[in-house]
């Protein structure tokens, strides 16, 4: 089955099994390996991408369901060679350790700040609640999000 969708502003067309995971199509067919696989069952948020303005776990989305959609992956967050304020804040304030959760954390934070430009600490905790970090770096991650919106 042929599926057409936009990824990071570019029209893409893939041929494949309709029930293939969007995660696998992004990584293996489109070589966008910034999106990570953590648990593969919707628990950890490492594979977070934005579809039509909403964050989702790409491991739970069959590619057939994104026909005609617009997708943003971590590769599409920076623009014109400049990092997004969230990405810069993660670098400046130690929001990343091993890096597996980072793309999902950044996308969840970008989405949160878009919906809620001045989140409280509780809003940040809720906004990132579906993203697990196993390096126990949550405090620095929350701080990075705060610094990102203060900029």
């Amino acid at each position: 089955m042929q599926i057409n969708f936009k990824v990071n502003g570019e029209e893409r067309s893939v041929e494949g099994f309709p029930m293939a995971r969007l995660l696998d199509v992004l990584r293996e067919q489109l070589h966008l390996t910034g999106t990570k696989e953590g648990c593969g069952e919707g628990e950890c948020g490492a594979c977070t991408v934005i579809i039509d303005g909403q964050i989702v776990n790409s491991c739970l989305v069959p590619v057939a369901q994104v026909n005609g959609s617009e997708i943003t992956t971590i590769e599409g967050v920076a623009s014109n060679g400049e990092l997004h304020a969230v990405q810069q804040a993660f670098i400046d304030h130690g929001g990343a350790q091993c890096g597996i959760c980072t793309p999902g954390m950044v996308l969840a934070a970008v989405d949160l700040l878009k919906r809620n430009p001045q989140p409280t600490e509780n809003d940040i905790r809720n906004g990132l609640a579906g993203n697990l970090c196993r390096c126990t770096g949550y405090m620095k991650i929350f701080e990075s999000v705060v610094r990102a919106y203060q900029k």
Partner: protein
Amino acid sequence: MPGSLADALALLNTEPGVWKPFAGGTDLMVLLEAGKLDHRNYVNIWGLSELRGIAVTDAHITLGALTTYTEVQAHPILKSEFPMLCQAASETGGLAIQNRGTLGGNIVNASPAADSPPALLVYDAEIELISTLGSRWFPYNGFHTGYKQMQIAPDELLARIRLPRRTRGASHYYRKVGTRKAQAISKVCFAGLARIDQGHIEDVRIAVGSVAPIIVRCVETENTLRGEKPGAETTQAACASLSREISPIDDIRSTAQYRLQVAQNLLTDFLSTLET
């Protein structure tokens, strides 16, 4: 990928049992990837606009089966009149799951640990099943008949969920107990609604999840409470009724003993909110 609801129903009618409806995928994709699904054919209903949207009349609020948890939480009338449903939606998974998981899917996935059914049961929800032959509405209570068993024919789709707007003046109490705040599957999930009239409990409704093969509407406990004055004696009698009505088990998430104790604690806490 049917282009319309009529196409989807025609497919289910032509080859009943062959096609499994596939909505937000938050449960099915996990099982599919783990090789735990028998079905080989899926009918993608996610794009069917006929199954979306929230409609409000004076008497009811009616939700399309594909209404997501995010949409539930954002709706002003659900927030003001059905707060337990909104709370259940906000405590299901995390945001990425809430953007994709649907209320209809939560019902027909038929998990005894699902988060929205206790609220739906307490709000006296009704559901609509449709097929090429037409539509039928009936009370949600009784839809689940046993573990993962429900009264739906292979050619039918769950189309809508309807809540009667009769919650004015009621106390609402919803509490999910899980291992962590987000992304947890509940150990016990409790929904309670009650009205107090001249110091006595009126119109009490209680439902509990993760304590039996299905989510239980606790009719015996309700009967014990109706007409009584909130207080220690009433609470004790209600806890005794509850323990007869639920049948928790030991599993990977908790133990039968813990679940019984927590269910009773939640009932006690709910009843304490009714004391003046």
